[in-house]
């Protein structure tokens, strides 16, 4: 028990150290989650558009190369 509370206290600097690690984790994991969610919604959007115009699909793969 003593060991755990010593570890959390970090020699009296616990609040600085844990805030630093905590916010870094929130920012990096948050960015990852946001990016994954963006990929998922955009993929769904493109699939919906493709489903909407099955006739134009083939012609479109042609000009994408030039467009991107």
């Amino acid at each position, binding site marked *: 028990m003593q060991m755990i509370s010593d*570890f959390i206290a*970090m*020699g*009296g*600097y616990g609040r*600085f*150290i844990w*805030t*630093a*690690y905590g*916010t*870094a984790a929130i*920012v*990096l994991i948050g*960015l*990852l989650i946001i*990016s*994954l969610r*963006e*990929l998922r919604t*955009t*993929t769904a*959007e*493109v699939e919906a*558009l*493709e489903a*909407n*115009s099955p006739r*134009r699909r083939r012609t*479109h793969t042609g*000009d*994408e*190369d030039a*467009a*991107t």
Partner: protein
Amino acid sequence: MIQQYANPARFNRLAKTLMPWFAWPAGILIVTGLYFALFNSPPDYQQGDTVRIMYVHVPAAWMALFVYTSMAISSAVGLIWKHPLAHLSAQAAAPIGACFTFICLLTGSLWGKPMWGTWWVWDARLTSVLILFFLYLGFMALHNAFDDPARGERSAAILAIIGFINVPIIKFSVDWWNTLHQPASVVKMSGPAIHSSMLYPLFMMAIGFTLYFGALLLLRMKTLMLVRRACGMSMAQLHQQAAE
């Protein structure tokens, strides 16, 4: 050869192959690095346990500079050779770099308070890193400021290239001016001035962060390509509807 990857299908295939090689080692290195940083590295003889902030602060600072450099290079490639993926990669990298710079500033502040007695000083190192943060934000804002995406791309690329002057200023600010910030102790001519028990977790975190950046960059580039595709497709559908 690089031109081949301008094709979205080829890029996606390459990204799919590379992704696990970035993502898994990134996770493993960061977790192991955290274990050493928090449990299995010695406290500093002067700074006590606050030195543990270094394992996040320093790799985040390196990444802030590394990502900006990569962004400036892709912007230049985009402007000069008009490689279609170059601007896309700069655009995808900017938010990641901004996040690393934010982490660097915040953890630095949390380290400064107990060790220097202040959250912030307007000295060369701290101010130049704050400017770097604003350069990232400015780049993202410029990208979205124009109706014509090509103009936004160009303006943002020019900002990224001009702003690159700030990178060496940050690096050498601790040598050129008197600052509260300590000079470099890892990347220097005479070799690192840090014991290996601190150097190993530092490198693990740094390589982990770099791989995390690689994985996230591929993922965000893929999203941006899909956004463009969706844009092109909905435009085409509108034209078609108008024609009918």
